[in-house]
């Protein structure tokens, strides 16, 4: 079993949740998302982000508007829709459940694994 593979699978699962949580806090520009995630030590590529944003937008969870920029082409700023908020709520609930479950499982399990 490859450790890197498992790690990337784990990260992949929470990627959308993280992105949505950033957008929920207010209108953002994609490179801001990358910056914020990097600041939180969660590295992601812009090339991965753009398709994901487009998919979420096409699913009706996000919306965007064009903002003129001084330093290049107009920028796309993303914001959450009503549906997106609802969806985010679901994800958050699942995440909390999952986090609790993982926490609950990992703490006592340490004893069993060491004995084995």
């Amino acid at each position, binding site marked *: 079993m490859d450790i890197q593979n498992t790690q990337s699978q784990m990260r992949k*699962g929470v990627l*959308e949740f993280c992105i949505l949580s950033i957008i929920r806090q207010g209108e953002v520009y994609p490179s801001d998302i990358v910056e914020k995630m990097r600041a939180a030590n969660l590295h992601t590529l*812009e*090339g991965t982000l753009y398709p994901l944003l*487009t998919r979420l937008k096409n*699913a009706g969870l996000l919306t965007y508007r064009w903002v003129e920029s001084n330093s*290049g*082409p107009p920028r796309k700023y993303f914001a959450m829709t009503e549906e997106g908020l609802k969806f985010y709520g*679901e994800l958050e609930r699942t995440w909390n459940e999952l986090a609790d479950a993982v926490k609950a499982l990992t703490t006592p399990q340490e004893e069993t694994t060491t004995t084995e």
Partner: protein
Amino acid sequence: MKKVININFQGRVVPIEESAYDVLKQYIDSLRRYFANEEGRDEIINDIEGRIGELFSEVLKKGSTCVTEDDVNAIIASMGRPEQFDDDEARVQSQLGSQQYASSAENAGTGNAGGTGSAGGDNTTYNNIPHGRFYRDENQKVVAGVCAGIANYFGIDPLVVRILFVIFAFGFGFGFITYLVLWVAVPSSASAVIGSPKKRLFRDPDNKLIAGVCSGLAQYFGVNVWIPRILFLIPFVSIVFRWHHWGSFDFPNFLSISFSPGSLLIYVILWIIFPEAISTAEKLEMKGERVDLNSIKNTIQQDMTGFKERAEKFGKEVGEKAQQFGRDFGSRGRQFSSEAGNMARRGGSGVGHVIGVLVKIFVYFVLGSILFGLSVGLFVAGTALTGFLPNKNFVLASGWENIFAWGTLLLFIWVPIVGIITWIIRRVAKMRANSKAIRFTFVALWIIGLFCLIGLASSMYEDFKYRSHTDEQIVSIPNPTVKKLELRGIYPASDDEHYWFRIDPFESIDGDTAYVKNTRIRLTTTNDSNFVVSIKRYSNGSSRDQAKGLASKLTFNFRQKDTLLYINNYVTFTEREKFRNQLIEITIAVPPGKRIQVNQSAGGWGFEEHVDFGHNWYYYDEDNNDERRYFDYDRDREYINKGGRLVRYGWQETRDEDNSDNDGDDNDTNNSRVQQQKVQKDTTSGGYRYKEPAKNPANNKKDSLPGKQAKADTRMTLPTAFIQRFSI
């Protein structure tokens, strides 16, 4: 020193190094391919381009005069290469996820989690497939994975199953059908678990010599790359060894070897059919490896080292251009093949795939054969006509015809040959071959050549329009009283077998005189007691008079030695007279009870191979008042005049007696070897009357009646050993 170009990128003018532009273009193309099946492809790429544009303007703001290759590489690194993106699994997962978001938000979270689970599960469950259920193993397949599936099911080595299958099942013939049935009936391992690997045929661009067909095959069958390469080369090498056959234009031979280049043809066909493994995922599929992040990473690392080596070898730019062309070609080929059979490829379910591929192979084989035949034909024609060039004055008349002939030869024949060779060389050397200017030049030159051909053909048609002949002329042979006459050919004195090049009808050229094997020997019977030899000269010309004039210039030489009659085997004409299909027709009338034999060496060319539609073959005779009948005959066989008919001497003689009353019956089985050419029964004699030459007063000046001739010649031929030579 680097060239800087200005590009319009996302509505901004960006000065960029040309090499950096190439890198950028390649990157965006790779994104385009990567997102090819994505719903919002253009939007995603536009977004990414927008971001790149922004980063460019940041670079320029910092004071750089232009965007350098390093800048582009840094930007690409921050954006990530497609290979670094979450690959197929992630896409499947998030697509599944997004569908579920759309349908119900409530299930979305679990759906997403489930997607992750199944994607993660692939890696672990894959190895568990074989237990309990029977699948065709797409990962280890050679044809369709049936044997590998059986092997997995019973937990034995696939090689054992394959060998058993080949020996037993295929040996008894129905194994093939069994295999097909299993192929259809047994589900593929790929259909059992989404995202599990499926081995497919690709062209391998990383290990290619020409187009990567062989290395793709090697990857598919898991053998050393040199095995398919050598298999492809063996027949090709064999043509090279047999190349000397081509010089003589021996056509049956030539046709038989045209199958050897089949390997080349198959290569080209496979080249068109197999898609190139461009993306990392495709490269992994080609090897039947699992597509996941780790394997992709490994592959990229291999790619990088491989790329470095290649870059050192050829230089980066050439490589990029070649890849570009390869890709263009690949995508075009793919487009074409999807037209040929949309049942095949991607969906690729079992038999449909195979049938599609077979149909395609067949279609491409036919098309390829036609193309190959055409180019070989062109080459042969080109070589033949070029070889003939020194002799053109023997055929071509006016200045215009010369110009047309040159135009036809150079533009109509050699231009396409050069074009094809150029294309092949460019292809092999991986040069860009889409230069429109060159293509248009070739086509334009060829069209001029086509007009030259039309001009030449119409001009030649005028030259050959009329055909005329001289009156029949009796030739007095020294000793017409012999019991048997054997005809042999005389060859031109300068005849030399060591020509480097020779076109069959043109026997030889001697100074300004050409010798052409254009003679014809006809056999008939006569009631006279002596052999009667007569000749008739034919020629074409632009007018009837010219044709007749050319015909009358033909000379006929012969000599007799006992029973051997040597006749010249050719017509001669000078450069001034030109070749106008001059022909001498020699008629030998055989007296009753006397024998005739025509030697292989005598008379014309292509005589044995003439196209004979059934046995009712009549010589075309312009004046059509010839009442003689002519007999078909074989060379080197002896015939005898029996009751006005020529029959094989010896073996059919006795049986022939019985049927003598059936004289002239075409259905006479005993005379199957002697076919009648012309049946015009002379009612007075009951036999076939020889048309008396006395009726042709024109001939009386030179030639006497056969009877007189015989008397006159007996004196001359007393010393029979003495060879006399006559000329008319």
